[in-house]
């Protein structure tokens, strides 16, 4: 390489999502009551861990980016407290009202400004589960992407990515810049905020980027999500003593010739 190597720059994308374990279905309206809890999306926490693992091994400047309401600052603070260098909040209060492609284009525009080498995102989100934003950022930027990434090696601006496909483990080589969607939280890349990290994070400035609210006509309309009415096909045992419930199941398994 004739030109001096500049330090690798990584953007890690984070979404603040409702805690889906706290979702309660209202028995009358059948609508989901999301509750107050907002957390860092599960797979995005793995992406943060992978970004910091790459930083440790190869050296990198890591910036966390979230698009959402002002409260999404909380997940950026958490990322900073675990060791991310910088954080940016894209002010998008109605982020759940726009489709994944519009979100991807807003994030891509921010990524271009900073000339990042590598973008890491979680494989999917806990709430909407589209898994589309990562590949759509890659497409918008005309970069390649690798999904289901479990491990990353880097040499000469070429990534060697391990991924878990459907029935196989694969190794993909891809040049930078690229987008990776992170699947798993390996033990060694799990990061947790430290008290010291928390203190340092609170001293950092998180710039807020204002974007023009998307004016394009909405391509999709969503109905209010409701719980599905259960079909009365299967047998459901409820409110009976444990031994009796187990006995009924064993009897049924025999009847169906499953044991």
């Amino acid at each position: 390489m004739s030109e001096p190597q500049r330090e690798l720059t990584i953007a890690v994308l984070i979404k603040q999502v409702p805690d889906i374990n706290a979702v309660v279905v209202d028995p009358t309206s059948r609508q989901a009551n999301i509750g107050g809890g907002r957390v860092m999306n599960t797979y995005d926490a793995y992406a943060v861990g992978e970004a910091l693992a790459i930083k440790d091994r190869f050296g990198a400047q890591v910036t966390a980016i979230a698009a959402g309401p002002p409260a999404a600052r909380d997940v950026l603070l958490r990322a900073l407290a675990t060791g991310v260098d910088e954080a940016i909040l894209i002010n998008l209060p109605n982020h759940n009202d726009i489709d994944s492609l519009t979100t991807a284009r807003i994030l891509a525009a921010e990524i271009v400004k900073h000339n990042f080498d590598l973008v890491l995102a979680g494989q999917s989100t806990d709430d909407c589960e589209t898994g589309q934003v990562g590949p759509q950022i890659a497409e918008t930027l005309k970069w390649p992407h690798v999904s289901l990434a479990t491990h990353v090696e880097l040499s000469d601006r070429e990534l060697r990515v391990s991924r878990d496909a459907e029935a196989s483990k694969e190794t993909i080589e891809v040049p930078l810049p690229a987008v990776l969607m992170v699947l798993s939280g390996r033990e060694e890349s799990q990061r947790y905020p430290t008290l010291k990290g928390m203190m340092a994070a609170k001293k950092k400035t998180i710039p807020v980027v204002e974007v023009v609210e998307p004016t394009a006509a909405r391509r999709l309309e969503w109905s209010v999500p409701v719980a599905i009415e259960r079909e009365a096909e299967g047998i459901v045992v409820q409110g009976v003593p444990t031994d009796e419930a187990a006995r009924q199941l064993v009897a049924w398994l025999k009847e169906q010739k499953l044991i």
Partner: protein
Amino acid sequence: MSSPIVLVIGEHRNDRIRPASLELVTAARELANLVDGEFVVAVAGSDIGHIASEFANVEGVDRVVVIEHPSLAPFLPGPWTGAVSSIILQIEPFAVLIPSSITGRDYAARVAARLDLALVPDALTLSIDEGQVVAHRAVLGGRVQTAVRFVASSPAMVTVAPGAYSRSVTCEHAAPIESLRIAVNDRDTRATLVDKTEHTAGAKGLTGANRIVSGGRGLGKAENFALVEELAAVLDAAVGASGATVGAGWRAHSDQVGSTGHTVSPKLYLAVGISGAPQHLVGMSGSDHIVAINRDPDAPIFKIASFGIVGDLFEIVPALIGQLKSTVD
């Protein structure tokens, strides 16, 4: 005006049509009938003439188009994005249905971005309302469903969840087959597959197993998987895991059942502490008999369970193990 076309991107693996694609045939035929339209299957890959012939024999298929290019095998999202975009531009369909598999989702999102289209993933049902496509899908961990309507995006583009429709069958008819040409852009070929290892014997045991006992987040922590393993041992069953437990690092990814793991269809699938996120359901809903043990009566797993017990798994599973042991003895 010619009749509207419903286009399915047919999937194949190891030289066979993937069963999920036969479900898409059913979904697409129903949708095409609703708009009095034509239903076309596109098959892409390298050396796939026989796959095209197989699709031509499937009931409900009006026409098959074949796209052959060396860059389309082995699968990488770049060349497939180029190919599928090109197919859509040439066929000009009213709706595009793509299997919600790992590969399908990997290129569908990029194709939508390239063609400036909205994409709804994991559709469970498709219908037409006032001329517009409406797709139902589950959100918030599968607890609730939303109806998504395409209002200003054409063609309507969806990935269809496996198990959502029944499989179409082969019949006497043979739909016409024609070839389409595509060009592959350099920018779509920057990633290279350098190594591929099929999953280990243990994981294969999962896909071929007659009985599977799977554990979910309801187990609380990794150590509690011992209960699932003990129950599996008594039933001579393989052990599976939900995506949530794999994500949390409790189990290896090779144990995972669901959209980012294995698709299984055993005679007996016993789900312990699994709420039934759609990503899990798509991997096991084809099982003959589904048993669910869960604390939450509203958990989606009960919707598809043939036998469900609402209660505390830490009480029920040990009782079940005890009774099964005495039955076997």
